[in-house]
């Protein structure tokens, strides 16, 4: 059940230029949160910013959770000033957990930039609950934006790097790397990153004939399925169900459910 918890900051560090990791103490969130879910952070008291900021759980520990975020605008810039020992109001856990399919043999993550954020928790869940270690394609514009490589290595994941400028790994798009990994029947792809990248990954998976899960982003007000502000158009043709809520029906969707034509 989602709730609002005041959490103490245990650690807050810049992990690469403009990217931070925030670890907060909360047995409640740690106990309830599952990989793929997210929370809404109250950046600071007062009316600016007016809305909370959605962030997914990077990792879920015994009595704390971590959030990995990128400075995008004013809200995340203010958030980065939070120091150890201070408190922050967090609403969550929200959204549906990432589905874990026991029948799948091979799991491949496709992470673009800060889109890597939900994957460490998902890798841990897959290893613990399915006994399967996922492979990871980490893609970004440039080397300094490749995050979590070390964490995945520690979990025993095979990691493939790709950058737009060739500063690390292959100079290629993630979807190209994916195709070259020869994913066959029994493979499932899990993707999070910029919309264009998720669309390309969806298209690649369609061509390969394998299922693809995508974790979407949308501007959110309530995070709880109430305001109907965060919808994306689905491929469902029933009028009443055409719009799906990223916050409540997702954020993780089977890619074939989304109407990618709009992106």
């Amino acid at each position, binding site marked *: 059940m989602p709730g*609002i918890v005041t959490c103490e900051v245990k650690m807050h560090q810049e992990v690469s230029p403009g990217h931070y990791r925030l670890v907060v103490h909360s047995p409640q969130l740690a106990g309830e949160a599952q990989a793929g879910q997210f929370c809404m952070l109250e950046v600071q008291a007062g*009316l*600016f910013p007016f809305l909370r900021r959605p962030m997914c759980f990077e990792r879920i520990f015994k009595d704390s959770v971590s959030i990995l975020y990128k400075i995008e605008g004013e809200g995340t810039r203010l958030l980065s000033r939070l120091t150890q020992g201070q408190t922050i109001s967090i609403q969550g856990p929200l959204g549906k957990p990432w589905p874990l399919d026991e029948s799948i043999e091979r799991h491949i993550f496709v992470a673009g930039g800060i889109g890597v954020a939900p994957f460490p928790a998902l890798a841990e869940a897959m290893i613990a609950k399915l006994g399967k270690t996922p492979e990871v394609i980490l893609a970004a514009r440039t080397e300094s934006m490749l995050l979590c490589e070390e964490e995945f290595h520690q979990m025993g994941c095979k990691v493939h790097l790709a950058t737009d400028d060739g500063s690390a790994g292959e100079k290629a798009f993630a979807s190209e790397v994916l195709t070259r990994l020869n994913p066959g029947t029994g493979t499932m792809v899990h993707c999070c990153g910029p919309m264009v990248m998720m669309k390309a990954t969806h298209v690649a998976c369609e061509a390969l004939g394998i299922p693809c899960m995508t974790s979407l982003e949308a*501007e959110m*007000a309530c995070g709880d399925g*109430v305001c*109907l502000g965060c919808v994306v158009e689905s491929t469902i043709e029933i009028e009443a169900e*055409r*719009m799906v809520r990223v916050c409540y029906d997702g954020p993780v969707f089977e890619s074939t459910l989304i109407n990618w034509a709009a992106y």
Partner: protein
Amino acid sequence: MGTSVDLSINLGGLKMKNPVTVGSGTFAYGQEYNSYFDVSRLGAVTTKSLSLQPRAGNNPPRLVETPAGMLNAIGLQNVGIDVYLKEKAPWLREHGCTIIGNIYGASPEEYAELAQRLEAEGAADAIEANLSCPNVHNAKTARGCTLVAQDPELVKAYTEAIRAATKLPLFIKLSPNVIDIAEPALAAEAAGADAISAINTITSMGINPETRKPILSNIVGGLSGPAIRPVAVKLVWDLSKVLKIPVLGMGGITNASDAMQFILAGATGVAIGSYTFRHPTAAMEVIDGLEDYCQRHDVAKITDLVGAMEV
């Protein structure tokens, strides 16, 4: 201190245990927020606007944050009256909630049918007719208005049609986008409305200078939140000066002292809207805060404060 305060009100025939409800569209169908607080504590739950058929609403993007508020163009996405009656209303009833059923139709006949069905099924204790949503494309009226609520003649016709269809307390929800809000309000009152709800969101828009495109796919949307509160308080005051029927005031309320501004300006009831998104327990805290206010000011009944601004 510690003496009990009477927070109960009678809003045009709707008895509420306290003056606090929620803005339509900011609380879905009630159940969604029950994990944060016992929603039956509210004076009433106001539903999302219900239409005869389910509506998918506008294309995304539908939402953007603004200074002290937000801009939305949801386009009245809702489950439709049938699903509401079957799946949503029973939950509200089981949990002992007082229900304000908010309705939206494309014609007086549709509004009348919606009101009649809500009453017949016992699925609302009052009807709030949304004549003022800025996010649906209504054909321009003969007098060049885009909202029913902007045309007193239409407000009269719609109110009469709904009035004839239901005996439930009938609230007419008005738009701030008018020259003189007294005109549609008096038209509604003359046609048999039991209360006026004000305000709906303020028509507004935003443009992304980098892409030169409108931020909302609908181009225009409605502004809500604390940014609009001073406008709303003024319009509630305008209404309370001319109306005999009570006012349900809303627009940017975040806490009890905001709510008191509306009550002192003449609102009998208040609704918490967008701020619930930021702070889901806001409405409950307003109830507690109003009680505390009355105790601090030695007031036995909240209704003694309605319109009690001292000039």
